[in-house]
């Protein structure tokens, strides 16, 4: 045990003290920070502005006027603010506080307020001829953007029970899709307003009548009540899967690389004169798992800090973090020991690729399964997957982090299956490790590995 400790300590130090580990560890938070700061600037719509002229052929005689009123910059600004307020009402309080809409933030996400002018054409104008207007080159502010032809029955239906007519829209060449959107949005608003006025209805009143605010649902538990976590409960399973995936993947890879290095640099036999192959493997796996746990702890702490800062932490069950560690350890020991075995069996990194295939499938499968599992955490499929190693760890975490967690007996049964799979994987790996570490020459295939295990 003492020797395993020494090996684990060296493996841990050799991994954690490298520049690569520290850079890799900080890279992710650094990227997120850079993205959070630079993202809004990079993807800012602030520089976008729909500006130019829209020609309208309006046989109804009312839509052009409504469109002009709709495109009034003051009206647009008012509408934008109202929409933003309604959207914000749906997000949790903590986020709402930091995301108060301002003219600046709205311009960042929606672009500058459009500067669009309506040019009314005679209602009986020849459309083919009017299209020529679109072909005329003009400087930016006076650019001829679009020709809207309003149908005669767009405001008042042609007969009883007939549907409302609409409009045709012709655009100039090379027009930004976003300008097309802005024009159509405003045409819709103008048409609805014109139709309401034709019926002597108050537009604001219609809005009021049709709007029902969505409630923030509250979960009533045995001893407390808490608001539903909403988007958080959808994001959490993904976050957990990724943390475990990256922890196992990075740790397993490093473990494999360091084993190959020890074998190819011939340190392995020196070590085997002091410790047994099992002690060497166990120490390496534990040391590497320690390094992965450090990385994982850092990310979890950052995640928790983020949740606390948005006052969202109360929505997460703290026990989940404990299960995260348990399932991570199970997944790491299974995958890690198999990767250590591969490292011992081959002579160099490129030989490991063919043996890595099955392991990569085991690792990537949960990533592909997380959508069906998180959408339907208690389906037969999800339940069965919770007991099939090595995907059981991932599946159970996804289910537990979902809004409808499984019964506790399933969790413990999954842990029991996981522990059994750890014993199986470590036993298999130990046999391969013992034989492979001193075996040079032709790299073994999967069948050879199984033969080694049988012979051991």
């Amino acid at each position, binding site marked *: 045990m003492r020797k395993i400790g020494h090996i684990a300590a060296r493996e841990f130090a050799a991994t954690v003290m490298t520049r690569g580990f520290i850079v890799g560890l900080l890279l992710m938070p650094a990227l997120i920070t850079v993205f959070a700061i630079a993202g809004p600037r990079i993807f800012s719509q602030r520089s976008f502005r729909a500006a130019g002229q829209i020609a309208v052929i309006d046989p109804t005689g009312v839509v052009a006027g409504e469109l002009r009123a709709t495109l009034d910059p003051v009206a647009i600004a008012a509408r934008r603010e109202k929409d933003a307020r309604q959207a914000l009402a749906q997000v949790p309080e903590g986020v709402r506080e930091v995301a108060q809409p301002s003219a600046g933030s709205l311009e960042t996400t929606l672009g500058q307020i459009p500067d669009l002018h309506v040019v009314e054409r005679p209602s009986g104008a020849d459309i083919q001829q009017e299209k020529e207007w679109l072909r005329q080159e003009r400087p930016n502010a006076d650019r001829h953007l679009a020709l809207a032809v309003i149908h005669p029955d767009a405001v008042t239906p042609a007969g009883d029970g007939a549907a409302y007519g609409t409009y045709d829209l012709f655009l100039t060449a090379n027009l930004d899709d976003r300008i097309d959107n802005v024009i159509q949005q405003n045409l819709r608003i103008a048409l609805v307003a014109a139709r309401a006025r034709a019926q002597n209805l108050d537009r604001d009143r219609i809005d009021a009548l049709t709007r029902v605010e969505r409630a923030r649902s509250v979960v009533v538990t045995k001893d407390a009540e808490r608001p539903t976590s909403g988007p958080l409960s959808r994001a959490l399973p993904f976050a957990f899967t990724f943390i475990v995936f990256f922890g196992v993947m990075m740790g397993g890879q490093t473990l494999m690389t360091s084993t190959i290095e*020890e074998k190819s640099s011939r340190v392995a036999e*020196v070590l*085997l004169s002091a410790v047994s192959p099992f002690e060497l493997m166990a120490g390496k796996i534990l040391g590497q798992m320690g390094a992965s746990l450090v990385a994982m702890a850092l990310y979890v702490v950052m995640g928790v800090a983020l949740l606390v800062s948005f006052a969202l932490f109360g929505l997460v069950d703290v026990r989940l973090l404990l299960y995260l560690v348990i399932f991570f350890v199970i997944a790491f020991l299974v995958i890690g020991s198999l990767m250590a075995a591969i490292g011992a069996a081959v002579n160099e990194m490129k030989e490991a690729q063919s043996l890595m295939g099955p392991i990569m499938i085991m690792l990537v499968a949960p990533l592909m399964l997380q959508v069906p599992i998180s959408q339907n955490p208690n389906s037969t499929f999800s339940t069965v997957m919770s007991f099939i190693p090595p995907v059981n760890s991932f599946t159970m975490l996804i289910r537990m982090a979902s809004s409808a967690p499984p019964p506790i007996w399933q969790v413990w049964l999954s842990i029991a299956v996981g522990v059994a799979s750890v014993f199986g994987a470590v036993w298999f790996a130990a046999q391969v490790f013992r034989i492979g570490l001193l075996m040079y020459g032709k790299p073994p295939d999967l069948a050879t590995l199984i033969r080694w295990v049988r012979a051991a």
Partner: protein
Amino acid sequence: MDAAVSLKGVTKRFGSTMAVQHLDLLVPRGGLYGVIGPNGAGKTTSIRMIMSILFPDSGELTVLGHKSALEAKDRIGYLPEERGLYRKMRVGAFLTYIGRLKGVADADLSARVPRSLERVGLAGTERKRCEELSKGMQQKVQFLAAIIHEPDLLILDEPFSGLDPVSTRQLRELILAEHSRGATILFSTHVMLHAEEICDHVVMIHRGQKVLDQPVAAIRSQYDPRAVRFEPFEPGADVSPLRALAEVERIDRADRGYEILLKEGTDPASVIRRIAMAIAPARIELARPRLEDVFIRIVSGESGSVETESKLRADLREAGEGAVAV
């Protein structure tokens, strides 16, 4: 009961290859044993079985009184044929790490590591990374790693391979120093000269079987070639007067001189005197049995093998080029 290593009827096969066959070996405590033989003879396999890195298919084995070296690992020092270092690790940290794995207390290591580095002329390299050292220096560090815990039994597999003459001499001195400290030493080599210079007992292995197991002194007397090597002072001098000497059986040309084979029961000292009086010598010496010759004599004679002498010598030379050993 004072055997450091004992093997009885040990056999090991790899698939259809018989690596070691019914090997008996007894290394007494305090002995300095050399296991010699060409590549593929089964030396490394035998050593790995002694180290419990491999396990015999049949036969019995004890190491320092234990059934397995695993039970006595901390008392054994081992320098494998294929040996390495952690390239990025610092020299001091590497030796400390190996020392810890061998059960040496940290307090002892803090004094022992710099002292042993100083002993091999590597003082001040403690903080250097292993990759910064020259190959010869790395080999010294590897040897130190094998003796950092002052083992009772030191097993060295081809310790001299890849060493330059100066390093070879230094290593030989270090091995002898360990022996005078009281350690039992068992080492393998394909360079028979090294065994001749160091060992007090030689075990020869050929194709997994032991063909000789004797003290060096006994080998010398048993395989005495009864020959005198002679180089005349004047090159090309007529050596026919020597043929007239009663003690001389045959004269063969050898290298730049002659090998004079003596009749049985002749006193070599008197013949040397008489030869020197007959023709002025540039060099005259008694031919000593060389282990390589002994090996070839045994293998091509006693085992009934059909291998020719030149083929065997070629094998030994090939082994010298460091091909992978079994």
